[in-house]
C-alpha cells in the first residue's frame, strides 16, 4: 500500500512537471541541439541551409582566430575587474549599512535604483554624460582643473569606462545580497570574540569573514556568470571598440552571426561559451545547495 502511494506521488509529480519540461525542451534544448548540429555545417545567412558538412572545422578555426582569443581575453579581464571591484565596494558599503540605524531605509532605497534600470538606459545616459565636448563629466572635471578625458575613444579608457559604468549599474547587487547575509549572522560569536578582547578588525577577519563565506561565494558566482553574459552595455556604449578593446565574447559572437552572417561559425563559438557557463553553473549549484 505504502509503495503504491509513493508510486502515485511520483506519478503525480511527473504529470505536474511535464508541461513545463516539454516547454523547456522546445524553447531551450531544441535550439541548443540545433546550434550543435549547425556548428558542423557551412550555414550562413546568405545560404541558410545544412548542405555543406564541415565537421569540426568551425571549432578548429575558432581556436586559430586571433579575434576570438582577444574576445576571451577581454572578457576574462572584464569579468575579473567588475567582480573584484564590485565586491570590494559592495562589501564596504554593506558593512557600513549594517552598522547604521538612522537613514538606513533611505540609503537602501537609493542603492536599489540602478539595479532596476534597464541596461540599455544605463548605457545611453552614461554615453550622454561622457560625451567628450557636450558631456557633463568632462565639464565637472574641468572645474577642478582636470581632463578633458576621451572616455570612449581610447582603447584603455574605453575598457575602464565600461567597467566603471558596469560597477555603477551592478554594485548594488553585491550590497543587497551581502547585507542580507550580514543581517542574518548570529550575535553570539561576536560577543564571545569581544569577551576575549578582539578589536573591530580582528572580529571582521576571524568572525565575519568565515561566517559569511557561503553567502560571499554564491554572490560572487552569480555575479560572475552574469558578467560573462554582458552584452547590452557593449552594444550601446562601444560596439566592441575602439579597435577590439571592449569586444566581449557575447558581442564577438553577435558580430560573427549578424554582421558576418556566418551562423555556422557563430554556433561553434556559442557552444564553447555554453560549455564555460555550464561549468560555472554547476559550481554555483553545489554552493547553493550547501547554503540551504
Amino acid at each position, binding site marked *: 500500500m505504502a509503495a503504491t502511494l509513493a508510486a502515485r506521488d511520483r506519478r503525480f509529480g511527473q504529470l505536474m512537471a511535464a508541461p513545463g519540461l516539454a516547454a523547456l525542451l522546445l524553447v*531551450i534544448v531544441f535550439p541548443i541541439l540545433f546550434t550543435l548540429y549547425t556548428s558542423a555545417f557551412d550555414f550562413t545567412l546568405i545560404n541558410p541551409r545544412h548542405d555543406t558538412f564541415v565537421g569540426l572545422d568551425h571549432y578548429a578555426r575558432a581556436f586559430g582566430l586571433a579575434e576570438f582569443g582577444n574576445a576571451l581575453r577581454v572578457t576574462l579581464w572584464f569579468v575579473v575587474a567588475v567582480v573584484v571591484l564590485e565586491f570590494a*565596494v559592495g562589501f564596504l558599503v554593506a558593512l557600513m549599512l549594517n552598522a547604521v540605524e538612522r537613514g538606513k531605509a533611505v*540609503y537602501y532605497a537609493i542603492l*536599489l535604483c540602478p539595479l532596476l534600470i534597464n541596461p540599455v*538606459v544605463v548605457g545611453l*545616459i552614461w554615453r550622454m554624460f561622457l560625451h567628450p565636448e557636450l558631456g557633463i563629466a568632462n565639464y565637472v572635471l574641468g572645474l577642478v582643473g582636470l581632463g578633458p578625458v576621451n572616455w570612449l575613444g581610447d582603447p584603455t579608457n574605453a575598457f575602464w569606462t565600461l567597467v566603471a559604468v558596469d560597477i555603477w549599474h551592478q554594485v548594488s547587487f553585491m550590497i543587497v545580497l551581502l547585507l542580507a547575509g550580514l543581517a542574518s549572522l548570529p550575535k553570539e560569536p561576536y560577543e564571545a570574540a569581544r569577551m576575549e578582547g578582539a578589536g573591530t578588525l580582528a572580529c571582521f577577519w576571524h568572525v565575519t569573514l568565515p561566517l559569511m563565506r557561503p553567502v560571499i561565494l554564491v554572490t560572487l558566482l552569480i555575479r560572475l556568470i552574469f558578467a560573462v553574459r554582458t552584452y547590452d552595455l557593449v552594444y550601446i556604449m562601444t560596439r566592441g571598440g575602439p579597435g577590439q578593446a571592449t569586444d566581449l565574447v557575447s558581442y564577438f559572437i553577435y558580430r560573427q552571426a549578424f554582421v558576418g552572417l556566418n551562423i555556422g561559425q557563430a554556433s561553434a563559438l556559442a557552444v564553447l561559451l555554453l560549455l564555460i557557463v555550464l561549468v560555472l553553473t554547476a559550481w554555483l549549484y553545489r554552493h547553493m545547495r550547501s547554503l540551504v
Partner: protein
Amino acid sequence: MLVRRAAATILPHAVLVVFSAAILLPLLWVLRVSLTDKLTAYRIPPEWTEPRLDNYIEIFTAYRFADWFTNSLLVALASTLLALPLAVAMAYAFARHDTGGAPLRLGVLASQMLPPIVLVVPLFALFLGAGLLNTYAALVIAHLTFNIPFLAWMLVAFFEGEVKQLEEAARIEGATRFQAFIRVSVPLAAPGIMAAGLLGFILSWNEFLLALILSGRATQTLPVGLSSLETHRGVEIALLAAAALMAILPVFVLLPFLRKYLIKGLSLGALK
C-alpha cells in the same frame, strides 16, 4: 576614546552619503536634462531654465514611443502569463515530490544562466525558416526561455518553505492531489507567485538582445527602440532623457510590491 567613538559613527555615514550621491546625482542630472528645452540641454557650462514637460510629450510624436511601450507591455505580459502556470506546476513537483532530482534542478538553473547570445543564434535561424521573424510570437517564445526557468527556480524555494500540514489535512478529507495543490498550496503561495511573476515581468521588460535580433519595426520593444535613438543623426538628448525616464517608470511603480521578495529574486532563491 571619545574621538574614536565619534569616528566610528561618522565614518559609515560618510561612506554611505558619498556612495548615495554617486548613484543619485547622475539620475537627477537625467531628470534635469529631461526638463530643459532642447538647446539648453546641450549648453556647457549648464544653464538653468524654467522646467518644462515638452520633452515628455514630444517623445510620443518624434519617436514611436507609444508603440515601443505597448510592444514591451504585450510581450512581457504574454511571456510571464504563459510561463507562470507551467512554472508553478513544475516547481511544485520539484518541491513536493523531488521530480527529476538534482539533475533536473541543475538543468533548470543552467537554462536560466544561459547567455542570451547562445540562444538567439539558433532562434534566429529557426524563426527565419519558420517565417516567424518580426512577429510577437517570436518575442514571446524567446522570452519564455528565461521566464520559465527563472519562475520555476524561484517558486521551488517558495513551495519548499511552505508548511505541508494543510495540504495533508485536505488530502485526508478526500481531496485529490491536484485539488490539494489548486485549493491549498497555490493560495498559500499566492504572494510569492505574484512577486515572482512581477520579477519575471521586469526581466522581460528589460530584456534587450533577444528582442534586438528577433523583432522588426512593428514589434520593436522599448529597449530596442531606445537603442535605435543612439544611432539617429543628431540625437536630442533632452528627448532621450525623457524617454529613458519613462522607460524605467513602470519598474519603479512595481518596486513597493517587490521589496520583500527582491533579495530572493536577486540571489536566485539562495538568500531570504
